């Protein structure tokens, strides 16, 4: 599918507009309705009233949604490219759950704390789980079909979740601090925990974006990619490393969040065609918007409570997953 240049530009413009809209909504809409004057006061840092303070809390939260959403959307696109599997997603394949497990075990058993340690733990967990799920899913004949990978990911997620509950339930003292690693939420964000994650996210971003050429070649088939002079193994490894760093970082910040990485790349392909040079950056943009909007939705529907964003993305994303299963011709289906 060849997409014309004006349409690409329109795609970027559309997604940037959506991102701006999301940022605006995320700062202004919440469990508490705040008048405009106080919103402005909150944004400019004058937190004399409760309303302004609420808005001030929404700023790091929005920043976190943008960072984590971009990471998950991009990681999903890379995973779909590496495994040539339209159902790949950091949540569905269990990678986020693995990252969460490492963080929770680190907190519960080794008394680890601090933003940097969580990030390293998250990335290590994401890496180990990604390798594990891929090995299980691709063992034997037929390679990594969507069904096998999805089942391997689901089984791993269930096992990991059971393990997380087993670690957390007996420990009332840490139940509060690991809460967000069970469902996925951006509510507890602060700029202090967000800043250390930025370099990690940037490294992941660069590695992923740099792998666009390899992913494009892989889309033609492995043999053809090798024939075109691509070092497939090296390229895949680099792309996978980028995706793992992104997933681990996002999960260490806000817990396992699924389906963003599934939905976003498909939407971006509808806008921009199949060229990964476009799909990857667009996925990052759209992922940020999707996570932010889901967070806003979670604040509205459960007033006066808030719904963790992971619940919202699952509810919105699962029908999309079903739609993808029904409408894509896949190996093994």
């Amino acid at each position: 599918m060849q997409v014309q240049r004006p349409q690409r530009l329109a795609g970027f413009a559309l997604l940037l507009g959506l991102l701006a809209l999301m940022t605006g909504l995320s700062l202004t809409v919440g469990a508490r309705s705040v008048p405009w004057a106080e919103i402005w006061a909150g944004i400019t840092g004058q937190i004399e009233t409760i309303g302004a303070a609420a808005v001030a809390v929404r700023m790091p939260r929005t920043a976190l949604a943008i960072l984590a959403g971009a990471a998950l959307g991009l990681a999903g696109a890379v995973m779909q490219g590496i495994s040539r599997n339209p159902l790949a997603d950091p949540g569905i394949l269990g990678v986020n759950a693995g990252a969460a497990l490492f963080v929770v075990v680190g907190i519960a058993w080794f008394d680890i704390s601090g933003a940097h340690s969580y990030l390293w733990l998250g990335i290590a967990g994401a890496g180990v789980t990604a390798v594990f799920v891929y090995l299980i899913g691709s063992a034997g004949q037929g390679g990594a079909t969507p069904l096998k990978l999805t089942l391997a990911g689901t089984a791993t997620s269930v096992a990991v979740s059971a393990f997380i509950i087993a670690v957390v339930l007996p420990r009332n003292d840490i139940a509060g601090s690991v809460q967000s690693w069970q469902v996925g939420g951006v509510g507890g964000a602060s700029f202090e925990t967000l800043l250390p994650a930025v370099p990690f996210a940037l490294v992941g971003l660069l590695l992923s974006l740099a792998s666009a050429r390899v992913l494009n070649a892989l889309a033609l088939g492995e043999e053809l990619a090798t024939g075109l002079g691509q070092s497939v193994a090296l390229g895949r490894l680099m792309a996978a490393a980028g995706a793992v760093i992104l997933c681990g970082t996002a999960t260490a910040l806000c817990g396992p969040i699924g389906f963003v990485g599934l939905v976003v790349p498909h939407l971006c392909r509808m806008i921009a065609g199949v060229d990964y040079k476009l799909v990857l950056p667009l996925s990052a943009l759209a992922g940020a918007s999707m996570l932010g909007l889901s967070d806003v939705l979670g604040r509205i529907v459960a007033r006066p409570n808030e719904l963790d964003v992971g619940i919202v993305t699952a509810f919105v994303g699962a029908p999309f997953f079903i739609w993808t299963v029904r409408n894509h011709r896949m190996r093994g289906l």
Partner: protein
Amino acid sequence: MSDMSLAAPLAPRKAGTRRLQVLVFLAALVLGLVLLTLSCGRGCLAPGDVVAALTGTPGANASFVVSELRLPRAVMGLLAGFSFGLGGVAFQIMLRNPLASPDIIGISASAGAAAVFVIVILAFDGWLVSLVAVLAGLGVAAMIWALSSRRGAAGARLILIGIGVSAMLDSVTAYVLLEAPAWDRAEAMRWLTGSLNGVQLVQALPVAGALLVFGGLLACTARDLEVLRLGDDTAEALGVRSDVTRLRVTLAAVGLVAIATSATGPIAFVAFLSGPIAARLLPGSRGLLLGAGLVGAVLVIAGDYAGQFLLPARLPVGVITGAIGAPFLLYLIVRANRNGGTL
């Protein structure tokens, strides 16, 4: 479940003896586990004390512990485990795929979501909860069938769509539990994984009723179900109406799984595990329904006991069965891959 029908190289009579042995062994195991649950907890009671407590002898010193705490657990574990095993294997046989068990394709998730919704938001209880859970289970089954739109054997498509439906319904459950003021987070986590904590004998009544009605229906349909495995055309030629059989089995299996789920929460993977385990123990495929029910009961009662007393921390039974079931699912995937099968 192709591997189930391939496992019978024994002579008929020998196979019959072996089958009886296995079933008796499983029943004895269930009985033993029930007795263990009744008599041993933090400390062990003499058999005489247990009997005295159960028969309601006045002044029996352990009557509260035995009849109020341990008996409901044992009874509910037995009934729910049997229901999960029976309902699970019925689905697996009907769809000819071990992965097509109700807890993987979203039937349990729908019953759980519906039960939590009517309990928490509408404040229903008792039989009404069970009824709603069954209706939700049937509705979701029909939806998955329609979405995957394949007759007969369950393709990868049905299973993947079921996984998607599960994920969506689980998010509904999480949402409802969050809305409920009375449920704290730890309680909610227990409900999401399945647990026998705090069950009362009254709650076991609908499960027992369902086992009687739907289990009976399934037993009546067992022969037709067996024939259906040969394929729709062969079944029709043998005088079995495949659509009627399929409808009855679906109704019975959904009824069993949904009512058990509405009582204990979705105890992870019991429905999925019981059938394949029973198939490995039994020679041939006869007695598979009963065997799977017994294995289900063993899994739930043993898992609950282990979660309560054998591990350093008290854990709900769903965590234990989830931790056992997931590796088994991975093993199944790897094995199917090695054989070159398409699952």
